[in-house]
């Protein structure tokens, strides 16, 4: 949708445009991307590496994946939201993931203008989180010489009916949005003793929320970053519902006196620190 | 030494399979291959083997692959329409490197076609029927005795190279009874078992053109088998380098061992000026035509591949260098002739005789081609 809006705006601005799109299983670590080329006469839709004017990354890892395509003096607009595919999910708790940290200075060594934005928050403030992509388009527009008339006409013609207003507002907000503050990623302190020991294998946990929703004693919670935390270890009665219902084999419940197994990157809430 | 017996091609196939150590048959009835199943169900259980009639040809080859993974030598037999259904699992067996033998007794096609008539219409399907880049070993016997020999060879090659091997002959050979003397025993090749302990074993660990050892399910080695592109652990991967290495190895384990696989018969070719290229049942007519042509003073010869895939490019190229004319006779509209032309590379004139009317190619018409204007065919 977003790439179609870009392409449509470029067409409206009088360019010859070619767009290519690849869909993959992004949630399984695949890639979904679109190249757009424009000019007076475009033959191929694929952008060669090192020649893109702007890279619009709708997710942080995509910015890293594609930055080699940006030309010297070009720009990267990246949403700071992170979507951790299962394959990269090694440890949400300590952030020892194979998922790359958000780092505003990562591209400093290159002549690239960087804009890290929190599109979801901006869109939420405007009233609808689903307009986040229009915020990103607005930020992209700031790096391109296309009249807003064309952008807004493209948005109006392509977004679902009833959402034109919010998407145009999001686009305008995106034009002027400033760099977002990169969230601090602080590991949780290790847990506290409890009647039963709740071991969480964070590198396998996908943060699906089943354990915490089914725990009769409300011992577990998935926090805002999607990592599973023990919030009330004292209450654990050892019913094992969380363990039995964990689709990812990420939880082990041990009796109070059984020593936690030290092998493997687990951390046991029952162990003293 | 055994005594002569009068048996059908399809019976010879069963006897060859049993001699080679076949212990599992899964199949589905189809003309003109059904006699193989009907003989198997009588003979296989007596040898300690298992027979099952499956619900279709897809399931037949799946059951064969399952049995082979359990350590059995396993086979199925079919004809064109069923062979079409088996393509899915020919690819699967190729990718997973599970030995198995598939017999296709060819009948007229496309589709249900001419169920009771001979044909050589599946030559390209046997090579390219399943999707993706894959090697193929396809053997084409010309007589009842050769059906026996090549069935044994098919099992041996499939065990040696961990790959499906296709035995391709036609309705005439399948149903013809000939007097043959079968050997008391045959040389048998068995798949290589791993020589490492189970905990050190990875199922697809092999050098570039190598064939990995293969334990059976239940032998104490626990491993994963998948048709997805996989690494040495047998586990799926999207890594392009690993994919290329795997597909390349699947080809090279065949292509670097042509001396073990390829078999080409030549007859009176040494001083020939005109040669007939033929395989399967047509090879017999061609041989007769060569004999008659020689009697008429024509320097004729025969080149007949028993292994049609991998195609014997070197042998055909050498023959093409030598003769002035090469006649390619096939019971299809021209399938292997393209390979002959590619191998000959313009070194000789190539003449074709092709027919798809469900009738065999006779020696007389071939003789007529070699002796134009003599009225040999009248």
């Amino acid at each position, binding site marked *: 949708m977003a790439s179609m809006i870009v392409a449509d705006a470029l067409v409206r601005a009088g360019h010859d445009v070619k767009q290519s799109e690849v869909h993959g299983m992004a*949630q399984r670590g695949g890639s979904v991307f679109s190249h757009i080329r424009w000019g007076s006469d475009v033959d191929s839709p694929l952008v060669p590496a090192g020649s893109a004017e702007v890279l619009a990354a709708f997710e942080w890892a995509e910015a890293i994946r594609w930055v080699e395509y940006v030309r010297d003096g070009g720009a990267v607009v990246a949403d700071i939201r992170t979507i951790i595919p299962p394959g990269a999910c090694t440890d949400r708790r300590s952030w020892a993931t194979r998922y790359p940290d958000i780092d505003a200075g990562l591209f400093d060594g290159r002549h690239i203008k960087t804009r890290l934005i929190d599109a979801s928050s901006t869109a939420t403030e405007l009233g609808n989180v689903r307009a986040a992509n229009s915020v990103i388009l607005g930020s992209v527009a700031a790096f391109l010489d296309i009249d807003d008339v064309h952008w807004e006409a493209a948005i109006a013609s392509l977004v679902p009916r009833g959402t034109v207003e919010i998407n145009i507002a999001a686009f305008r907000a995106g034009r002027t949005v400033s760099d977002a503050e990169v969230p601090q990623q602080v590991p949780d302190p290790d847990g506290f003793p409890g009647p039963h020991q709740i071991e969480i294998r964070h590198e396998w946990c996908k943060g699906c929320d089943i354990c915490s929703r089914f725990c009769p004693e409300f011992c577990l919670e998935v926090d805002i970053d999607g990592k599973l935390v023990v919030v009330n270890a004292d209450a654990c009665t050892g019913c094992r519902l969380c363990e039995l*219902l964990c689709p*990812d084999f990420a939880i082990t419940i041990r009796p109070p006196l059984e020593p936690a197994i030290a092998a493997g990157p687990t951390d046991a809430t029952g162990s003293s620190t | 030494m055994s005594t002569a017996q009068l048996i059908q091609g399809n019976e010879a196939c069963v006897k060859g399979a049993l001699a080679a150590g076949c212990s*599992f048959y899964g199949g589905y009835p189809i003309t003109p291959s059904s006699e193989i199943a009907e003989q198997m169900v009588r003979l296989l259980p007596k040898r300690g083997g298992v027979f099952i009639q*499956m619900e279709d040809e897809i399931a037949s080859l799946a059951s064969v692959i399952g049995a082979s993974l359990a350590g059995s030598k396993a086979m199925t037999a079919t004809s064109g329409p069923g062979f079409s259904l088996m393509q899915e699992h020919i690819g*699967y067996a190729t990718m997973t490197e599970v030995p198995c033998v598939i017999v296709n007794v060819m009948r007229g096609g496309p589709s249900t076609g001419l169920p009771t008539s001979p044909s050589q219409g599946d030559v390209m399907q046997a090579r390219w029927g399943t999707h993706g880049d894959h090697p193929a070993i396809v053997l084409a016997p010309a007589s009842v005795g050769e059906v026996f020999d090549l069935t044994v060879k098919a099992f041996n090659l499939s065990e040696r190279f961990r790959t499906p091997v296709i035995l391709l002959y036609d309705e005439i050979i399948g149903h013809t009874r000939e007097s043959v003397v079968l050997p008391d025993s045959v040389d048998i090749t068995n798949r290589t078992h791993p020589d490492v302990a189970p905990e050190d074993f990875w199922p697809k660990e092999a050098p570039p053109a190598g064939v990995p050892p293969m334990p059976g399910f239940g032998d104490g080695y626990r491993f994963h088998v998948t048709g997805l592109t996989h690494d040495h652990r047998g586990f799926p991967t999207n890594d392009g380098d690993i994919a290329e290495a795997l597909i390349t190895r699947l080809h090279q384990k065949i292509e670097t061992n042509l001396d073990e696989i390829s078999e080409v018969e030549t007859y009176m070719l040494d001083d020939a000026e005109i040669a007939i290229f033929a395989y399967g049942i047509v090879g017999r007519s061609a041989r007769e035509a060569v004999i008659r042509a020689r009697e008429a003073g024509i320097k004729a010869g025969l080149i007949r591949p028993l292994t049609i895939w991998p195609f014997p490019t070197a042998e055909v190229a050498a023959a093409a260098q030598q003769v002035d004319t090469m006649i390619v006779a096939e019971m299809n509209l021209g399938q292997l002739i393209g390979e002959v032309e590619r191998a000959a590379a313009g070194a000789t004139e190539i003449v074709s005789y092709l027919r798809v009317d469900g009738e065999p190619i006779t020696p007389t018409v071939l003789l007529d081609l070699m002796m134009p204007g003599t009225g040999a065919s009248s």
Partner: protein
Amino acid sequence: MTDVKTYLREWAMPHVLCPGCAHGIVLRSFLESVDQLQLDRNKVAMVAGIGCSSRLVGYVDFCTLHGTHGRAPAFATGLKLARPELNVVVVTGDGDGLAIGGNHLIHAARRNIDMTVLMLNNSIYGMTGGQAAPTTPEGSVASTTPQGNTEPNFDACKLLIGAGASHVVRVLAANPLEMTKVMADAMTHPGFSFIEIISDCPEYFGRYNKVGGGAEMLSWMAVRDEGITIPLANKSFVKHVPSSAPPSGMKTGVLHREVRPVYAGVRGEQ
């Protein structure tokens, strides 16, 4: 009791399935049943087709065969006949087992081959992106039924009883202890056992039909189940769930059981 994680190929974990997908719960319950029965893991063969559920076999330390789409019962038949001492377990999905593989499934049932089939029914094609399956309830949204499914759907257990399966059970993925029990029962049953496991697909079915994520879908199942014979650790575990969830109209538990001759192919006297 062994930690069931020792039955995993830990080097292959975490598995490929989406957050909240209950298929992993099913796998865990299955491993508990293998452990309960103390099966020799060298003699356990898991055979799968293609799809999300079929991917499970890659992660377990048995002899595992990830076959072609729908054909798992046919591979398993050859395996079992050639090596009768193997405990053969087929893992299939609703699309894999009932659409492309329907023929193989009913014939394995008819023959009463000694195997256990776990059919994980998530009512949709998950691996390919949420297309309608033969089990997608009428009216439900899938990517190929954007206006709601207008085809009737299969009752897999009725189909399998009709085909001759000698042991037919339906169980919910929300009920892990019950799953372990029925799986152990099924593996000790002589002949063809079929277990339909009502699983979930939060990523597609849940999202398209606005019925929530994994936790919501499991909760919804748990209150719909009238067949629970083992209370989940004696807890009233559904306090977060409204009691107004719709009735299922779907019976769980053992739906059919008989003992009849097991087919092992045409074979000689042993």
